[in-house]
Structures are given as structure tokens and as C-alpha cells.
């Protein structure tokens, strides 16, 4: 990779178009969710306009707690498994964790905004809130490990182990905190018999919300993946530049091909 090359494209043109399409679809779906959620659907009998949070809070939580964590855990396992080891999985894992951290934080924030008027408190020591908060700390731990300077291979190994160990903890946290205390309402859509407990336009808007935030997640994941590739390329090229400078210090101005190191 030439250090001065201004046009670095980590993707094929087709992939670029696919990602653009994904972004467009996500934007349209989110806009439609906002329109349906704020203007078309009726207010709830007991919760009035507060119920409109149902179109964003569960979809965000779904993305954070299932999609992002699932992708991160699966790609970490794929990296650790010697036969499928590839930097692709490492990049995918860090992208999923980073986007997932944002969505987990948003889950807590939207939940808190909803909790204040309905439960009367910003924060309750409820099972789901507590386990989501713990999950956020685990994700932040992953990102902290990620920031420790190391060569790409041992960084990937270390972060994959962190993701795996944390992922194993998630069901244990889930059960322990559930037994500990619960106040949150049960799952509305993904309940045991898979029959949603809300009806009509509200159900459709909620469904659209799930689609919209899933698309948004996929698009953000792709963009973050691209950033990871670009930053790897940048680091490599910076290494090249630094090497050339050191060689130049030793030999004076470099005239020939700098790829050949003076002995």
C-alpha cells in the first residue's frame, strides 16, 4: 500500500453500492417508523402518548442485546477457532461491540425516559435494567481491552477471549438477576407462544421499528467495519513512512526504491 495514495478503497464497488442501499433502506424505515409512531398510531388508554416509546425502545434493546452481542460472540468464536481464523472476524467483533455499546446505552436511556413517568423513578433495581447495565459494563471492558496497545494478532486473541468469557456470563447474569428482582413487564413480542400482546396499527408499527433498527444496525456495522479496515491500512502506511524516515536518517536522502533497506 502506497503511503501517499489518496484513494484507498477497502471495498469493491458492488459492496459500496450494497451498503449505500442498506443505509438508504434504514433511513426510509426509520423515517416511516417515526411518522407512524408519532402521527398515525393512536395514544394508549392508560399510558397515553408515552406508549409511543414502544416503537423505539424494544427494537433498540433487541439490536443491542441480541443482534450486536450475538454477532460479537459468534465472530469471536470464529476467530478463536483455528480453521476459521481470519481478521474479518476480529474486525466484525469490534464493530459489533462498538455499535452494540451505543445501542445498549440508548436502551438504558430510552428505558429511563419511559420509566420516570410510568414507574415514577429514573432507575429501578429491576432485573432487566440491572442486567442491561452489567452488559454495558462488559462491553465497555471489551473496548478497554481493545485500546491496550498490542500487535494486531495478540490484540485480536485477547479481545476474542474477553468477548467469549463475557458472553458466557450473560445467561448467568440474566438468571441470577431475574431471581433477584423483577418489575419490568414481560416481553411483548418475543414471548413464549410468539403471539404479540398488542394489536392493529400499533403492532405493525412496532414490527416496522424492529426492521428499521435492524437495518440501521447492519448499516452501522458495515460502516464501522470499513473504518476498521481503513485504520489498519493507515497504521500500515504510517509504519512505512516511519521506516522510511529512519532509513533516511541513517543514509541521507533516499534516492532509490525505499523498499530495499540499507544493510
Amino acid at each position, binding site marked *: 500500500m502506497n503511503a501517499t495514495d489518496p484513494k484507498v478503497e477497502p471495498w469493491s464497488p458492488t459492496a459500496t453500492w450494497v451498503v449505500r442501499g442498506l443505509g438508504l433502506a434504514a433511513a426510509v424505515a426509520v423515517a416511516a417508523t417515526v411518522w407512524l409512531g408519532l402521527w398515525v398510531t393512536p395514544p394508549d388508554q392508560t399510558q397515553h402518548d408515552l406508549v409511543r416509546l414502544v416503537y423505539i425502545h424494544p427494537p433498540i434493546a433487541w439490536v443491542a442485546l441480541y443482534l450486536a452481542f450475538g454477532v460479537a460472540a459468534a465472530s469471536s468464536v470464529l476467530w478463536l477457532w483455528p480453521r476459521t481464523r481470519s481478521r474479518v472476524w476480529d474486525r466484525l467483533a469490534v464493530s459489533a461491540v462498538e455499535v452494540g455499546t451505543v445501542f445498549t446505552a440508548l436502551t438504558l436511556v430510552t428505558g429511563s425516559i419511559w420509566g420516570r413517568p410510568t414507574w415514577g423513578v429514573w432507575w429501578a433495581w429491576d432485573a432487566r435494567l440491572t442486567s442491561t447495565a452489567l452488559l454495558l*459494563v462488559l462491553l465497555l471492558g471489551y473496548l478497554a481491552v481493545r485500546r491496550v496497545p498490542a500487535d494486531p494478532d495478540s490484540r485480536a486473541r485477547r479481545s476474542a477471549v474477553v468477548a467469549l468469557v463475557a458472553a458466557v456470563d450473560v445467561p448467568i447474569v440474566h*438468571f*441470577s438477576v431475574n431471581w433477584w428482582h423483577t418489575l419490568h413487564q414481560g416481553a411483548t413480542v418475543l414471548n413464549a407462544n410468539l403471539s404479540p400482546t398488542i394489536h392493529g396499527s400499533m403492532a405493525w408499527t412496532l414490527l416496522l421499528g424492529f426492521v428499521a433498527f435492524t437495518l440501521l444496525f447492519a448499516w452501522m456495522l458495515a460502516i464501522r467495519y470499513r473504518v476498521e479496515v481503513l485504520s489498519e491500512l493507515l497504521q500500515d502506511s504510517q509504519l512505512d513512512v516511519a521506516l522510511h524516515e529512519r532509513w533516511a536518517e541513517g543514509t541521507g536522502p533516499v534516492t532509490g526504491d525505499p523498499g530495499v533497506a540499507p544493510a
Partner: protein
Amino acid sequence: MWRDTVLVAGKDLRIELRSRVVMQQVVPVAVLVLVLFAFALGPDRAPMAQAAPGLFWVAVLFASVLAVQRSFALEAADGARDGLRLSGLDPAGVFLGKTAAVALQLAILEVVLTAGVVVLYGSHVRSYGSIVVAGLAGTAGLAAAGTLYGALAAGLRVRETLLPFLFLPVAAPVLLAGTRAWQVALGIAGHAGDVDNAGDPWLRLLLVFAAVYLALGVVIFGPLQEAS
């Protein structure tokens, strides 16, 4: 693997026996934590006895961070970590050995802390069986998870700050389950007749936690050693 386990555990415990760092520094710190909690809660016995199970496990959790740090500090100097890696010992054996050494030290610490809780907070133990089982299972789980993260953080410049950040949230279920099991055993929660079964789901959770992290460590310690 078992021979290597005994070798590594013996090495760590022999160093501890000669240096007495855990016994003379970590155990006093844990007891000190109990005293500090008493200052925080005020001199009344009632709130202390009420909170005793949780305070016990918080003290154990903090002490386990220190014990794990010590366990890996032993190998920080003179390239001992590389020596251990190149020694040809089975990584699973190294993991189990270090875990066993940490667990034994923590178990001794817990005995001291239990006496401290009874003396300082005036708690009455109703069921010795369940506090011993909860203590052993919780200790095994903490030692296993702690050793995994200790190996992960060993050799990094940020290890002192990284270890608690990674380890404490993962160990939170041990705190929860241990506290609940102890509340039943100390007669704070549940009815007198429940002593033998109300703590059971929590004991099971502690056992599952220990089993999961011991198994995970056996599988994953090899690749982890290569990373550091």
C-alpha cells in the same frame, strides 16, 4: 494435566508460604473492609447484621482481585511467565494449578472473614452446611474467573486497573448468589423451615458459575497464554 496442576499449585503456595503476602496483606485488608463497612453503617448492630452476608461477599470479591493480582505478580519478574509458557506444562494444568492456589488462599481468607462477621456484626449461623457449600462453590468460581482475567491482563501496563474493570462485572452473579445463600443460612431471609432448601437455587447457580468458568479456563488458557 493433574500432575501439572499439582506442580503449579505447589509452586504458588510455596512462594506464598515463604513470602506471606496474601496472609499478611490481603487478609488484613479484607478484615479492614469489614471495619470500614461498620463505620459506613453506624454503630448499631441491627443494620450490620442485616447487611452482613452482602458485606462478606463484597469483601471477598475485592480480596479476590488482590489475590489474583498477587498470583500473576509472582510471575512478572525475570521472564517467569515466558518460562512457564516454555516449560511444556499443559496450559489446562497451569490454569487449574493457579486457580487451586488462589482458591485455597481465598478459602482461608473466608474462614477469617466469617469469624469477623460473627464477632463484629453479631451474626448467627443457622446452617453451617450451606455456608460451607456456598463458600466453596463461590470461591472456586471467583478463583477460576479471576485466573482467566488475571492471565489476560498479565504483562499489560494497565493490568492493575484493567483486571477489576473486567473481572468485577463478570463476578457479579457470585456476589448476588453468595449473598442470597448466606442470607438464608444466617436466618435473615426465608423462614426457619426453609434453611435447607430456600438457598438451593442460589447454591446451584454458584456451582454452575464455578463449573462454567473452570471448563472455559481449561479450554481457553492455552490460546490466552500465547497472547500475553
